[in-house]
């Protein structure tokens, strides 16, 4: 496995929102989803993940509810709000344009 990547600023929010499109999850679930779907490409500090979750909840992009987890313990479940969904759409399209632009720049210069 190649050495893990550091996160670019702002991408954590994007990843959290995306992870929650799969349905209601608790914090560990979100971390796991990100890990799995990125093939463990990133070093994800879990403390930062929780801070992001709390912040997004306060901003109204997520809402949280206490529920009972698979191991029968009290756990906090997060889900996307409609505002969160809208934000995700916006951020995804921004991200695509960003990546496309940067990629274009990085491509080997065409022989002239």
């Amino acid at each position, binding site marked *: 496995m190649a050495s893990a990547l550091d996160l670019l600023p702002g991408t954590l929010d994007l990843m959290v929102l995306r992870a929650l499109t799969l349905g209601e999850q*608790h914090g560990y679930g979100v971390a796991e989803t990100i890990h799995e779907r990125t093939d463990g490409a990133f070093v994800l500090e879990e*403390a930062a993940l929780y801070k992001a979750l709390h912040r997004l909840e306060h901003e109204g992009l997520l809402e949280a509810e206490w529920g009972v987890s698979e191991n029968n313990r009290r756990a906090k479940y997060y889900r996307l709000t409609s505002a969160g969904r809208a934000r995700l759409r916006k951020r995804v399209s921004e991200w695509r344009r960003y990546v496309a632009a940067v990629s274009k720049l990085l491509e080997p210069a065409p022989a002239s």
Partner: protein
Amino acid sequence: MKRRRLFRWPFRDRARIREDVETEVEHHLEVAARVLERGGLEREAARREARRRFGDVKRAKEELEAMDQRNERWARRQAWWGDLWRDLRHGARVLRRRPGFAGLAVGTLALGIGGTAAIFSIVWGLMLRPLPYGEEERLVAFWRPGHWSPAEFEVAREAGESFSALAAWSWDARTLRRGEGVARLESGVIATGNLFELLAAPPEMGSGLRWEDSRPGGEPGVVLSDGLWRDEFGGDPAVLGTTIRMSGEPRLVVGVMPPAFYFPTPEARYWIPLTLDRAESGYSGNHWLRIAGRMAPGVSTSDPGALAPIVAALGERFDYPPDWDKTRDASFEPLRQRLLGDQRPALFLLLGVVGVVLLMACANVAALLLGRTADRRSELAVRAAMGASRGRLARQLVSESVLMGLLAGALGAGLAAAGFRALVARLPLDPALVETLGVDWPLLAGALGLALAAGTLIGAAPLVGVIRGGLRGSLGGRRASGGGLTRGRLQSALVVTQVALAVILVAGASMLTRSLARMRAVDVGFEPERVLAVDAFAAGGDLDQDERRRFFPEAAERLGELPGVISSAAINRLPVRDGGYTSIAEPAERELGDAAPTVWWRVVTPDYHRTMGIRLLRGRGLSERDRSGAPHVAVINETAARALWPDGDAIGKRYTHGIDVEDEITVVGVVEDVRLAGPREPPVPVAYRPYDQASFVTSQGVMVIKTGGAVGPLAGQARALIQRLNPAVAVPRMASLESILRDSMADTSRIATFVALFAALALALGAIGVYGVVSYGVVRRRQEFGVRLALGSSPERLLRSVLGRGLILASAGLALGLAGLAALAGLVRPFVHDIAPLDPLSLAAAAAILTATAALASWLPARRAATVDPVNALRAE
């Protein structure tokens, strides 16, 4: 689309946030450890690895906690404002549903707030705002009664080591004439040259006056007020150092004062130096000065011992008769008190009146809210059951009173701003002083805040009981009778208070009205109808004694030739309006000593009594034959005749008068009494003397003109005629005798109008209060009435019992109000004359008015009680 959440996540406290963060993070670590364990790690190692991957667990927890707390606070604030907005809109809907009642509540509250703010602005401006002098709290005024002679002042000045400076001053009036223009009369002050130094008030321009100006031979200068400088000299700085003509004498303009300066009131528009000349005849004989002083550093303004050296020096130097002994009762008071003290009684009374109305308005709002809470018990109970906190419920209810307070505050502020000028013009206050005032906005904001706070408290007090106790039973639809009773009692207490306050105002108003009626009914002794009084001021520098002696009678005679004039005359001082000269008179045939009466002194032309409609009782009137050189004669009034010759006829008797010539004067006639000092004061002894024989003729003279037609059109002709006769003579004012008489009662009449207006308002509020509480009682006891009627009780009996309840409330209020009145009577006393301070008739009238109002207000609901249909009433519950 935005979805509204039906239930808000309940707000979390600190401990709860900590617990939540703890649970969430620990849950994560546990799951992570379990997964690692499943992957083959040993249990302890798995837990360590989970924590390592998480990062700094302790710090993360702290940060999450802090973040959540911040967010929580923010959300709480958001919710609070959102709820407030909803509550206010709700409150507005509720108020709109009862526009009449709400309008009355808001209207009275607005009157109370606006009135209190306006009056407080005046109180602040007149009583509390510092005078425009440096360290004004160290300035004092010397004692009364009696004024000071220049000699006394100089003795006091030499002995006054407790004072860093003493100045003597007096009011002054002088004509100002520019070129050949018309002379105008100005009021000002004549004072020792150190006045401005004493006041620590330097002029805006120029050097001002100096102590040297008061020495004999000093420069006759004048300092102008900012107002006079602008009005008369167009604000031109070049006037400084020029000479102007005042009362016919040249005066050098040596200064202009700043706009904010006044002394003693803004009416004074110039200051000229007083000359202390030992060689002058009045130096020790004329007592006409007031003394102001500045306490020396280190001497307390409340130390009466500071006067001891002055008193000792006065006693050593002067031989005082007992009535004028300045060595007794020596004292001083703060200058501020002396200058502004006259305004105090009126201000305190006005403040009391608007304060009472504000209180009543608050009680009214509270009663209104009280009525509303009872109607909403089930609504409140539902909300409480759904988890609304008590504070939240209370706030919802209080927001209505806050809304009313805000409305009333805005309205009151508008009223105060718009009506301030009109209000102060109608108050019995010195117009020149009031001129300088305006609405004090910070003060108004303060009053508004206070009213809001009061409204909120009053609104909240009755709610506490409702929220704490009364809700549980309310859901089922049946009213909890305990809560109802509490409400009844509270409402009764409010109504009793309202009635008590109304009693105070109504009794005050009836006392003032009665006093005014008595004053109006007084026979002043002259006939003021169709008489015009024209003031003329012939200054000493323009007309000397002999010229004045001729001028006033001649002016009167010429005025008599105007078309429509029946008769005309001149007098040195008008009755009622003008004070006058008095001194001791003694019959020629015996010494009265200390028993000699003080007799007022008037100088008149022969037609004076006829023009004024004062009847001659015995002897003859003055005539053209009573000239200089002829025997000295006088006409005296009845009171003087009785005082000088209690046992016999005064005609032909002779007397001497301190202020008059040294010769004996023969009484040739006795006229009826006149209320010389105004309708409030009893008649005083008066001697009338002809112009040709009087010891001196003052600058001031008043021409009285009796006309067959209207007085108004005559005024212009009169002024023109006098100024044609001599352009140096000023005509400062003209007025009909009737208006002068009215003005003499203006203070009482203005106060009476003001109090009567507010008393009517208070009465209406009181009536509404009684009506509200009695009709609520009737509604509550409907069932009981039904049963009683069904059991054979007569409707009249029910009617009587309900009526009785209203009257009991009214009597309680009445008793409380009368007790309060006894405590407050002092406020009205300065404006009440000729009747006892607690005039029984006025009190009885107030009691009767209140009882009748309460009876009427109770009768309407009582009739409803008597006409209850027993069947319906019993079915209703």
